[in-house]
């Protein structure tokens, strides 16, 4: 180190290490420590359980105690044997891994419960290809008594879910995407952009039931106004489109906020490079900015679809509930998977024989998850095709 010790104001030299291999721990340290933590946690859990009467959840207590012991133990060990920075780095690394494991817990639990209960129903013959017309309580009771296959299916609900969600996506994604483009590329902090940002924020918190009530009221108002002006015949407002509008209210803010963030971090130098080639702004946006941000946008869009495809409350008041398929968005009622699931859970077809309904509900939930999974996969593949070819430099 060069700086000779000077008067007191001299900044301390900025480093402590002199040797490269100073204070490394053997590679197996973490494994040993983990094993130790598991053992100590077991003992502690037993002791605690005895002392505080927590016998009924020894296992969970044990599981919780393992990181509680492991993390600080590693921290202290590294702090003492290596140095503080390394210790803190390791501590956060462990925390990050722990966060991941914690996130897996509910995932595994939910997926397991859905798959294990839902799979038999999904495999029941004709479950995907048939609807619920003709399925009555008496049939379910008979099924229970004779032990035959559960009848009835979710074709109509799959169709309804897909059609309504697609319509909502077609409404929301262009509006959301264009709005975020306006916010990031055009507005330059104008009052309008501030107003939009402000209200999009508010939209994120609209309860879905309110969105449904609003969409019903708005469509009813629109139809009655239009029919009193003679523009169209009076007709019921309960239809797929009304549900799609309700879902759009929920979807738009998610699309706007996610894509806005993704567009904002596109480096300005890419925009400039494009402008300098004499490329118009809108082409720059479409061909340079959006492709650069596409993977983020795609995950934002899938997120928003996942957000609304599972909605129950607003659908019932806007699209009604039927037992057979309807492809028509603007006429007639539609059923969707979440409503189907909810009704099967809450009001089993046969109150005295609920198993068939429960089986159908869980199987439908499984199907819904699979649908969103596939959508997600598709979005990722699309994003992959356009995404920046990453090489670090």
């Amino acid at each position, binding site marked *: 180190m060069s700086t000779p010790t000077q008067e007191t104001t001299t900044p301390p030299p900025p480093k402590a290490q002199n040797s490269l291999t100073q204070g490394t721990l053997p590679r197996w340290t973490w494994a040993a420590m983990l094993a130790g933590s598991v053992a100590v946690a077991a003992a502690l859990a037993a002791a605690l359980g005895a002392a505080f009467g927590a016998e009924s959840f020894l296992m969970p207590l044990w599981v919780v105690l393992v990181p509680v012991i492991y993390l600080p133990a590693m921290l202290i060990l590294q702090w003492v044997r290596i140095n503080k920075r390394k210790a803190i780095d390791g501590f956060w690394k462990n925390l990050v891994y722990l966060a991941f494991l914690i996130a897996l817990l509910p995932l595994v639990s939910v997926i397991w419960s859905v798959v294990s209960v839902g799979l038999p129903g999904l495999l*029941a*013959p*004709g*479950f995907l*290809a*048939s*609807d619920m*017309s*003709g*399925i*009555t*309580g*008496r*049939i379910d*009771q008979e099924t229970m008594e004779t032990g035959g*296959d559960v*009848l*009835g*299916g979710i*074709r*109509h609900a799959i169709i309804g879910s897909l059609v309504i969600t697609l319509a909502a996506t077609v409404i929301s994604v262009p509006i959301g995407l264009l709005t975020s483009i306006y916010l990031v590329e055009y507005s330059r902090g104008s009052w309008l952009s501030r107003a939009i940002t402000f209200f999009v924020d508010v939209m994120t918190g609209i309860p879905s039931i309110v969105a449904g009530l609003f969409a019903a009221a708005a469509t*009813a108002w629109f139809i009655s106004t239009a029919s009193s002006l003679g523009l169209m015949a009076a007709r*019921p*407002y*309960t239809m797929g489109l009304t549900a799609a509008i309700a879902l759009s209210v929920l979807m738009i803010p998610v699309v706007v906020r996610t894509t806005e963030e993704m567009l904002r971090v596109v480096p300005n130098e890419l925009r400039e490079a494009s402008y300098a080639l004499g490329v118009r702004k809108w082409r720059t946006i479409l061909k340079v900015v959006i492709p650069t941000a596409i993977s983020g946008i795609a995950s934002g869009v899938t997120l928003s679809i996942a957000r609304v495809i599972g909605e129950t409350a607003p659908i*019932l*008041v806007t699209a*009604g*509930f*039927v*037992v*057979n*398929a309807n492809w028509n968005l603007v006429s*007639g*009622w539609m059923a969707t998977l979440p409503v189907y699931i909810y*009704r099967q*859970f*809450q*009001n*089993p*077809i*046969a*109150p*005295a024989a*609920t198993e068939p309904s429960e089986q159908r509900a869980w199987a439908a939930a499984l199907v819904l998850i699979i649908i969103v999974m596939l959508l997600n996969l598709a979005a990722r593949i699309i994003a992959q095709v356009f995404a920046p070819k990453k090489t670090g430099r």
Partner: protein
Amino acid sequence: GGANNPDTGSEANGAENGGEVSELSGTINAGGASSQETAMTEWTQSFAEIHPNAQVNYAAVGSGGGREGFLSGEYLFAGSDAAMDDDEYEASKEVCGPDGAFHVPAYISPIAVAYNVEGVDTQLNMDAETIARVFAGEITSWDAPEIAEQNDGVDLPSTPITVVHRSDDSGTTENFTEYLHAAAGDVWEWEPDGGWPSDITAESAQQTSGVVSTTSDTDGAITYADASQIGGLQSVAVGVGGEYVPYSADAASNAVASSPRVEGQAPNNMAVELDRDTEEAGAYPIVLAAYSIFCNQYEDEATADLVRAFAEYIVSEEGQQAASEAAGNAPLSADLRAEAEDAISQISAG
């Protein structure tokens, strides 16, 4: 429609069956109370079997939602646990012509006071006051003297009582609290309402299936629920005029038949003022009468015919029987059925 549907009707209620069984065709959209959803499913499906070209949809949006949709013309009829008030009746004249709408108590079901106490396999007896005290949180243990003295010879555990009530506003709650208020007014001072009194701290769950499953999962729990849906739970025999009466379909149906009608609405209106503090032996006073609300007058002949046919079907012996088999409710008594048929026959086109 598909591979495993038992009937041919399903989605293809189109031409191929036309004329063969019935000339009725069209779609009725309706909505309302969830209490009668099971019965409605039965009715709409069976009706579609008889009339392949006709379809009835029922959305269980709740009684209030049903009446709102009905009054706005969105629903051709509504299902409702509570009768329309006079304002709503007035409003119904806008969509239903000068006579407005009328109620038919097509779905009658006893409300059971159901419980789950480990070690008690027999039916417990409770009078109205005891029930009220339990639900008000004043009696907190199953071996309380008030319960013990009405149940000689039953070995009651000291399990604490967990009251489970509906978390959503519901007709069941309204009927139950009406009963408590009428039959045990000095204990139960709260006004009858669809929502549970907020100052009683108790467990709650959504919908009948929710309270039933919560009660089933909780030792010492007690709840009130549509009797047809209590599954394996035990139910209380309710004290009426010194005797203890278990719930039964006949008792429930009779309670409705003997109750006075609501005055001041359409002439063929069948809304009832249930008599909760009856002392009549053998009557079971905790009854839910869920109405179907129809217009006296529909816009055109086809609609009127279709609605009339459906209404006739649901009150018919066959329809009531079908619902009862599926939903476990109490079929209408013969008198009530006759009255209902008469009321329904007045549906006309304007």
